């Protein structure tokens, strides 16, 4: 018993020590040494995939890091365009079926070999499953043939015309028949892989023979720190210089040594509604919920005002398809929501459940605010926390849910990746959205090869989602990056990558 009392007292004094703050050691010395050596340490919150083979990797967190090591024939830019990388140029045949790439001269792999047409053929064939195995990259299964025309020219043939095909050509180009990609990856990117210690770190170094603009940093270490509080402490103590995907609360604790860069997570965060189950099969109920929810309120309360409100399944970084007028299509209006509910036969509201994956705190926070906002119009919502695996199985695949707060991302930089999922016949249309008009627009978009006309069609699809109140759209979460003062040049992308090629120490 005495021991227990003692333990409680100790706990109390420990708490006191934490609150008054511990001394801050020699953080400056450590970071100055790194600055002099032109090295950067980046904190990441999860370990990388077991295999680093870019054609096998699934985790977004791994792709984010390995973006610095690999390149495709084409490469995405921070503005959402595609520029030639390993290729220098390409032409498309009149029937939209054959793409002929001319390779850039003198592009080298990290092992010193020059990229040849056979390496490209090997990489594309491997992803497309042309050598008899399963396609490694699903999107490339449309490739029917790939061949080297000469040393510097590769022709790729696809089964049917596709507007998105060129964006799939960001798939990494690897040296032919090199079989240690999973542990010692070799690519053509601006950084080369040096070493990896599982669950601890991964080290990259400047690749001196890179074809493009050389990078500024000589060495980058990605340090894996899974605990959110340890991440903050590591930033404070000088152990890491840069860390993305922080919360506003974490940012708040950092103090004066850091600049905060705000990008977006490129997610469509919404309260997704199961359009097939009552009461959400009634458009008036869905619209009522849209009116009931105050997006800016969610941002202010749960995210310290960070984040970008959205009104449909397109996030702002997709400037080409983003329509600002849709954000406030349903302005916050409690009276309107109540009258719509009454019209739909729920004058006293109803009870509903919000399923939230328990490992995503931002979604849990959002749901808590939504519960309060919905109560104002008489709707009693109850949060159900489920494990991620259960969520995928029950809600996403099983479509067994009423509503769920999650963020949906795009697997590649196309509007199709965000919008196709709500066509009625699509296998992963988890909200059971069913709009004949929407399906028709999508068919048209697929058959249109004029970029401007196609963009209009995709925009019409996005507007259709808003008008039918398919979901209660909320925001694209802010991606807050802490960058140590004196480090600059970080660019944000409309896809989930952390590009370090432009990052440098200011003089």
């Amino acid at each position, binding site marked *: *018993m005495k021991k*227990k*009392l003692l333990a*409680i007292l100790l*706990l*109390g004094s420990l*708490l006191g020590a*934490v*609150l008054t*703050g511990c001394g801050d050691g020699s953080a400056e010395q450590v970071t100055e040494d790194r600055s002099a050596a032109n090295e950067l340490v980046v904190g990441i919150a999860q370990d990388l995939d077991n295999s680093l083979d870019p054609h096998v990797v699934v985790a977004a967190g791994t792709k984010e890091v390995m973006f610095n090591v690999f390149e495709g024939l084409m490469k995405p830019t921070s503005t959402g365009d595609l520029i030639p990388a390993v290729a220098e140029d390409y032409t498309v045949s009149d029937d939209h079926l054959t793409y002929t790439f001319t390779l850039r001269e003198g592009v080298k792999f990290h092992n010193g070999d020059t990229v040849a047409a056979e390496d490209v053929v090997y990489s594309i064939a491997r992803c497309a499953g042309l050598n008899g195995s399963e396609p490694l990259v699903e999107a490339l299964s449309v490739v029917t043939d790939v061949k080297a025309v000469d040393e510097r020219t590769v022709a790729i043939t696809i089964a049917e015309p596709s507007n998105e095909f060129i964006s799939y050509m960001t798939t990494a180009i690897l040296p032919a028949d090199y079989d240690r990609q999973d542990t010692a990856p070799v690519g053509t990117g601006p950084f080369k892989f040096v070493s990896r210690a599982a669950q601890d770190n991964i080290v990259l170094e400047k690749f001196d023979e890179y074809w493009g603009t050389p990078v500024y940093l000589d060495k980058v270490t990605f340090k894996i720190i899974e605990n*959110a*509080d340890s991440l903050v402490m590591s930033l404070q103590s000088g152990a890491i210089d840069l860390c993305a995907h922080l*919360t506003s*609360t*974490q940012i*708040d*604790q950092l103090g004066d040594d850091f600049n905060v860069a705000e990008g977006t997570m490129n997610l469509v965060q919404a309260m997704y509604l199961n359009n097939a189950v009552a009461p959400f099969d009634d458009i008036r109920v869905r619209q009522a919920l849209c009116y009931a929810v105050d997006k800016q309120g969610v941002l202010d*309360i*749960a995210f310290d005002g960070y984040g970008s409100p959205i009104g449909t399944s397109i996030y702002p970084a997709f400037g080409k398809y983003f329509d600002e007028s849709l954000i406030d299509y349903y302005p916050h209006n409690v009276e309107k929501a109540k009258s719509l509910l009454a019209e739909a036969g729920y004058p006293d509201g109803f009870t509903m459940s919000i399923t939230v994956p*328990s490992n995503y705190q931002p979604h*849990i*926070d959002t*749901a*808590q*605010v939504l*519960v*309060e906002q919905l109560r104002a119009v008489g709707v009693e919502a109850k*949060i*159900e*926390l*489920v*494990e991620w695996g259960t969520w995928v199985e029950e809600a996403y695949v099983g479509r067994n849910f009423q509503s769920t707060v999650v963020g949906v991302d795009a697997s590649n930089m196309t509007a199709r990746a965000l919008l196709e999922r709500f066509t009625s016949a699509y296998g992963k249309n988890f909200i059971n959205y069913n709009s004949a008009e929407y399906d028709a627009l999508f068919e048209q978009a697929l058959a249109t090869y004029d970029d401007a006309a196609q963009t209009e069609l995709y925009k019409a699809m996005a507007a259709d989602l808003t008008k039918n109140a398919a979901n209660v759209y909320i925001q694209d979460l802010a991606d807050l990056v802490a960058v140590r003062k004196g480090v600059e040049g970080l660019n944000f992308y409309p896809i989930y990558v952390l590009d370090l090629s432009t990052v440098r120490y200011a003089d």
Partner: protein
Amino acid sequence: MKHLNGYLKTGLILTGFLTVFIVLGFFWTPYDPTAMDAKKFLAPSLQHLMGTDNFGRDIFSRVLKGAGTTFGIAVATVAIGAVLGTLVGALTGFFGGIVDDVLMRINDALTAFPSILLALVIISLLGPGKKYNVVLALGAVFVPSFARVTRTAFAGLRDVNYVKSARLMGASNSRILWVHILPNTMNVLLPALTIGFNNAVLAEASMSYLGIGVTPPDASLGYMLSEAQSMLTRAPWYALSTGLTIILLVFGVGLIGEGLQRRSGEVS
């Protein structure tokens, strides 16, 4: 009535005080504990005795409600643990033999697991996010310690004279167990109950702290403490007020346990 010693007195006053607040919390709180009306991170003031949290909710109201949840879970947990544990302990202690050996070895095996880990396993089997699952899991975890305590007591009393004479008078085993021996184990059982209660409060706190206790926006002390830790520098009153409430609750009941033990003349 025996003399109330200082430990017992202080413990009873402290616990009584907290119980009044907890009961109050079931019927009335100054603000709606889930309403996000006020400004975020207000420091403690007369309007908000313990300040407001990251959603602008009144922390005092949430502590009242949350202490109730935590208290309820702890009582239910101890009840499960004590009833099952006493049953197992009484039977094995009284009858001995092969049943004793088998049950006690199982008991040892269960004790060998860290209790939180065991509770986590049980919860993941039952599915997370339901309040009664936490109670069931923690209750199961508390069975072994109660079983061990009561077994020792029962085994010690098995052959004392009044039990022998009761047996000579033809009393049935169950009468001997529950009418003759059980009341005489109270000096061991009651302190065990209070210690068990404290462990249950702390266990609930740790479980919710790990994110598998109650579901937001409901409050429990443990869940609130886990929320508060990420805001230590921004809103220290949040962690302090929830942490102190846990400490007071555990401290008060701990004093009662200590007092009971001293009163029965068995100072550990």
